[in-house]
């Protein structure tokens, strides 16, 4: 592995970590409201959140491209008010990774939030704990196994994301090229041995992340 390859790995890891940091609060909020609250339109939101799981990733990429492109509604607003360029920058990488890994996190976190006995939360309230305190000291700790597993799943998914990333961030070496994108382009250029080496790396990382997540999800409670 060359210095360039280490750079690639480091960059991919950083982007996946950033995207997971983005997914956590958004995903927790979604998971919590889907698990607990009862509100109209819940089914619609559920379906929307699951969409990136089932849609071809390039479709998701296309949608993101249209929304965040310079002329797109969100892209234009971001450029006007914050001077941010999204498409073809690392921000687009983080965006693509986050959108594609969000459903996995929400799925795992929601399941484990639903299992938390509401009586504990109610009891905490009778002891004077405000809603935020109940969330952070009771609900989330009791659901931590699923939340951690969800985080690992999301991270693993982000490490391996390709279809949406290539559409919305392209392949700019050093700026937006992630591990999966580099593998694809190595094949395109006919650099098979490099492609295999990077593929092996990618597979190892994915395996480690999934294995850790499975261990967390499967361990019996008592």
């Amino acid at each position, binding site marked *: 592995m060359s210095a360039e390859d280490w750079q690639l790995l480091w960059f991919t890891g950083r982007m996946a970590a950033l995207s997971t940091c983005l997914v956590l609060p958004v995903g927790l909020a979604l998971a919590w409201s889907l698990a607990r609250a009862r509100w109209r339109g819940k089914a619609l939101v559920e379906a929307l959140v699951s969409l990136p799981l089932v849609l071809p990733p390039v479709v998701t990429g296309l949608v993101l491209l249209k929304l965040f492109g310079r002329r797109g509604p969100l892209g234009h607003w971001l450029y006007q008010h914050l001077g941010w360029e999204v498409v073809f920058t690392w921000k687009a990488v983080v965006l693509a990774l986050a959108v594609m890994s969000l459903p996995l996190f929400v799925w795992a976190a929601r399941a484990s939030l639903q299992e938390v*006995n509401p*009586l*504990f939360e*109610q*009891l*905490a*309230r*009778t*002891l*004077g*704990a*405000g809603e935020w*305190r109940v969330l952070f*000291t*009771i609900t989330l*700790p*009791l659901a931590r196994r699923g939340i951690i597993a969800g985080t690992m799943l999301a991270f693993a998914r982000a490490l391996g994301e390709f279809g949406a990333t290539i559409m919305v961030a392209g392949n700019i070496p050093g700026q937006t090229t992630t591990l999966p994108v580099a593998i694809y382009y190595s094949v395109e250029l006919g650099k098979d041995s490099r492609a295999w080496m990077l593929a092996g790396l990618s597979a190892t990382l994915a395996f480690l992340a999934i294995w850790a997540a499975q261990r967390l999800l499967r361990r019996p409670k*008592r």
Partner: protein
Amino acid sequence: MNHGLRASFVKRFDDAVVIEICGLALGPDPEITVLFGPSGCGKTTVLRCLAGLERPDEGTILFGEEVWFASAGRRPLPPQRRKVGFVPQDYALFPHLSVERNIGYGLYGLPAGERRGRVAEAMRWLGLEGLEGRRPGALSGGQQQRAALARALVVRPRLLLLDEPLCALDAPARLRVRNQLRRMLRRLSIPTLLVTHDRADALALGDTLWVMNQGKLLQHGLAHDVFSRPANLEVAGIVAIETVQPGRVLKTAGGLATVAVGAATLTALPLDLETAADEVYVCIRAEEVILVKGPSVPSSARNCLAGTVCSLAREGPMVRVGLDCGFPLAALLTPQACEEMFLHQGDAVSALIKAPHIHLIPRPD
């Protein structure tokens, strides 16, 4: 002017079950009130409504000057602000926190030193020393109960709500813990509402008692009184008076009523009968029946009934004797008494019952 808790509310459920509470009152005196009724009659829901964990559909819940719930008013006062100690049926100790942190959970705003001090004090008081670092899963049933109680008490609540505090304990622990609980509650001086379906618990722990059935409050009074003198047949069934027989009042004279029950005649005090009712139910607690074997002696009991022993059955630590005295009568004896009297099925005995121990309920046609 603190009048304590005053609650009258209605809560409806989807499957047409309705809980209608009228005139539930607690405090301000620090007495222990038992809410007694069969499983599923809504007792837990009442507690949860008082704690603020469930919201009634109509009515009011007031505590002193505070409006905790009013259907016409603004939003109900959230549980955080009611300062009520709530101990649910299986204690619900937070499984991810140690005993010490469980107990200290409600003391969030206090400086660490004071918090530790109060937790230690509560643990000492409840005999939980040495268990600070343990997880709730590693505690025995009795210890869990005391820890849950400590958690509720350490915040110095104004009201204590206990849901079946002894239900999760097995028989040997139950007796011991019940006595402990009684001593503790008496020392606490906090108005307490305790829910149970167990007669022994209710009698042992409660000062006053509310009988509840199918979502409604039926009778209120001193525990012992309610058990001995149910207001109507429904209550009689719930408090499980052993002998309930239909009878007819023959005459009332000199403060005594003569009642025909089956083939026998009884003398009772017509205290609880408001109107001169002819048709009545006669209620006699089995504990209040004295058995005599052999020739009858003059006694102060107004009722001396000749009868035969029909059945003998162990009921926990006692023996229930079924008699035929012209009507089916149940008596509760100690096993020692049965042995000393050489009681067997078919024996002829006399049953002595004092007039005040015969309770009359009007019987509608």
